[in-house]
């Protein structure tokens, strides 16, 4: 903190203690707010704040606005002007009550999906402004509990679910064993020096859906990739990014980059998760302070790797997926990741009957589960369901029976929407589809005499995994 900021902070504290309504439990640390506002007050922020022509064109681009009877208070410009705009106008001298109101807007009415930026004549990046608003609120301890908890986990353990390294490695070993009974010779190499790909996951995979780890291993093994799981830096998700804590957001990204450099891998692969990709590939380099803004090791999303595997014929299919599918463009994979065409290519390599949603690709609507919404948990669930109406209608209109979703947050959201809006669809990841219809090469079919046993073991494995997941399902779902 600068001396000036310090002084301002002290002054603010003083003011708060002498003021008659000092019953407010914690005063606002104005100095800290000023520091955050100043750090983010670049040329773009200044332009955005001053040239918005108040034309309202952005309103129709935002699913919160569309899903809630076009409430004018949900237009992107309104949300930005009345949170971060007011903070700058007041030069950081804001009250706790005001910040509490802002909290409901910056977390409860925006998923940082960035669709509105494409619909504004000046290309104003509302989501980036909202992110600064989040950072200000967070600095005063004003943040949804779910995000506070996960951020604390990252700070103390390096991953959002506070999973111990031994447990992570144990899960990998367990999955290697289970899936080794299905695919002969399958291993999950840990920290393999000189591997081509370092695969990183979302902690909810080892915690609640270990089969995701197993399925990825199956795919990589059959495709003959030289890959590894890292023992540290394996969590590529980043909820601190959505909480607005840049310092903590840097921790997992740095751990991941460091590990990749240490192992000398050619690329970091991100599991089927949207915001993890955004964090690792686009935001991370700036937090870590890498000149040029590119990660030190190329970062690729599973969708890209799976597409390459399928296109190069490294995995043969028994047949194509028989159901009518549609594809959810996760904002952080498509619009904010640039992979909408690759996603579609992969869908077409795997499925015969594909119908797109409208709108789609970079214009697709957010599912409503992004920006930290899912881990924000029950207090925000009603809102999440209400604003997800747009996505639900998009899905229903396709008439598909299966929705392919390469993002954990979208996955949970669309599963919830499925129940809420009775969509009668099945939500699947690419991993699930690939492992369901792929052909296991003869050399990898477990030896003849063990066949009976293997089949039994496989069933056993599936059951165990499912039971494991069921047991945990009672707990809070974080992703």
């Amino acid at each position, binding site marked *: 903190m600068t001396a000036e900021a310090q002084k301002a902070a002290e002054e603010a504290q003083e003011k708060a203690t002498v003021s008659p309504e000092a019953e407010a439990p914690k005063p606002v640390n104005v100095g800290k707010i000023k520091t955050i506002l100043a*750090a*983010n*007050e*670049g*040329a*773009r922020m*200044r*332009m*955005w704040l*001053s*040239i*918005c*022509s*108040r*034309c*309202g*064109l*952005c*309103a*129709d*681009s935002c699913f919160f*606005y569309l899903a809630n009877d*076009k409430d*004018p*208070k949900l*237009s992107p*410009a*309104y949300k930005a*002007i009345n949170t971060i705009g007011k903070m700058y106008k007041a030069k950081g001298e804001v009250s706790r009550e005001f910040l509490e109101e802002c909290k409901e807007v910056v977390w409860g009415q925006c998923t940082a999906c960035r669709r509105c*930026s*494409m*619909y*504004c*004549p*000046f*290309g*104003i*990046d509302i989501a980036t402004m909202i992110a600064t608003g989040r950072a200000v609120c967070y600095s005063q301890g004003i943040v949804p509990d779910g995000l506070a908890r996960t951020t604390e986990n990252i700070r103390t353990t390096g991953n959002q679910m506070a999973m111990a390294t031994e447990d992570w490695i144990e899960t990998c070993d367990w999955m290697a064993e289970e899936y080794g009974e299905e695919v002969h010779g399958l291993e999950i190499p840990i920290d393999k020096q000189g591997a081509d790909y370092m695969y990183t996951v979302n902690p909810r995979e080892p915690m609640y859906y270990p089969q995701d780890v197993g399925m990825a291993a199956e795919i990589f093994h059959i495709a003959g990739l030289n890959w590894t799981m890292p023992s540290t830096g394996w969590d590529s998700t980043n909820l601190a990014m959505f909480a607005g804590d840049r310092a903590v957001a840097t921790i997992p990204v740095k751990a991941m980059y460091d590990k990749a450099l240490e192992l000398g891998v050619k690329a970091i692969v991100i599991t089927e998760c949207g915001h993890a990709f955004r964090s690792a590939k*686009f935001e991370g380099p*700036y937090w870590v302070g890498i000149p*040029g*803004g590119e990660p030190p090791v190329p970062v690729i999303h599973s969708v890209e790797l799976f597409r390459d595997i399928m296109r190069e014929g490294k995995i043969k299919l028994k047949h194509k997926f028989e159901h009518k599918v549609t594809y959810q463009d996760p904002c952080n994979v498509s*619009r*904010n*990741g*640039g992979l909408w065409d690759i996603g579609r290519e992969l869908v077409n390599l795997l499925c015969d009957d594909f119908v797109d949603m409208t709108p789609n690709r*970079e*214009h697709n609507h957010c599912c409503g589960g992004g920006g930290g919404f899912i881990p924000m948990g029950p207090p925000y669930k009603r809102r999440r369901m209400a604003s997800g109406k747009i996505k639900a209608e998009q899905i229903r209109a396709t008439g598909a029976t299966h929705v392919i979703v390469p993002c954990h947050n979208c996955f949970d959201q669309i599963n919830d929407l499925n129940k809420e809006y009775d969509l009668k669809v099945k939500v699947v990841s690419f991993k699930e589809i690939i492992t369901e219809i792929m052909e296991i090469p003869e050399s990898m079919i477990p030896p003849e005499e063990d066949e009976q046993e293997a089949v039994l073991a496989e069933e056993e494995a599936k059951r165990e995994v499912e039971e494991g997941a069921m047991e945990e399902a009672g707990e809070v779902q974080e992703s």
Partner: protein
Amino acid sequence: MAMDKLYEFLTGPALWIAVIIFVGGLAIRVAWLFGLSQERDKPWHDFKSAVWAWRSIIHWVLPWASVSSRNQPGFTGAVWVFHICWIGVPLFLGAHNMLFEQAWGWSLPSLPDAVADWASMVVIACGVFFLVRRLARPEVRILTSAWDYTLVLLALAPFVTGWLAFNQYGPYGLMLNLHIFLSEVLLIVLPFSKLAHMVLFFASRSAIGYEFGTRRGARVW
């Protein structure tokens, strides 16, 4: 006569001041923002691309070239016509060019007066439409402050007064002075208001073009 004295002042020192503030204000603002961006807007500089800047800009300069502008075709069509006429009329107006000629000995080609006169009415009509739209659409009304209404009126003021003067409606001397005065007020306010978008538009569009286009291949239109 007071009007003549006023006219002399308005077309003399006041005009100089207005033009200097207008040009200087915009230039300083752009230079200052550019300096600031070197330090605080790294992504803007890291992913520069002439192609993406151009694509991002041209799709919002041409009418109905973006999905968003096609969502409200009437409004965005009016915005386009408004801007063309707003910039075109004062530059190619016969009366203005006579003044350019007197002042610097050179001038731009002139539009036929009748055309300029009609174009002025188009600007005024579009402006009235913007005001009505601002009041009529809840999502726009809620965003609009008194200052936003004022700026639309200020942008229209030279056209209303110029048109009245040209057509000799009302007291000519007063209208002309009012025309020049309000035009100067506009020139002075412009660089420090949201109307500075006449130059910053290109900067902010390039920034979003790089962020979405260079980095992700996404089209921001």
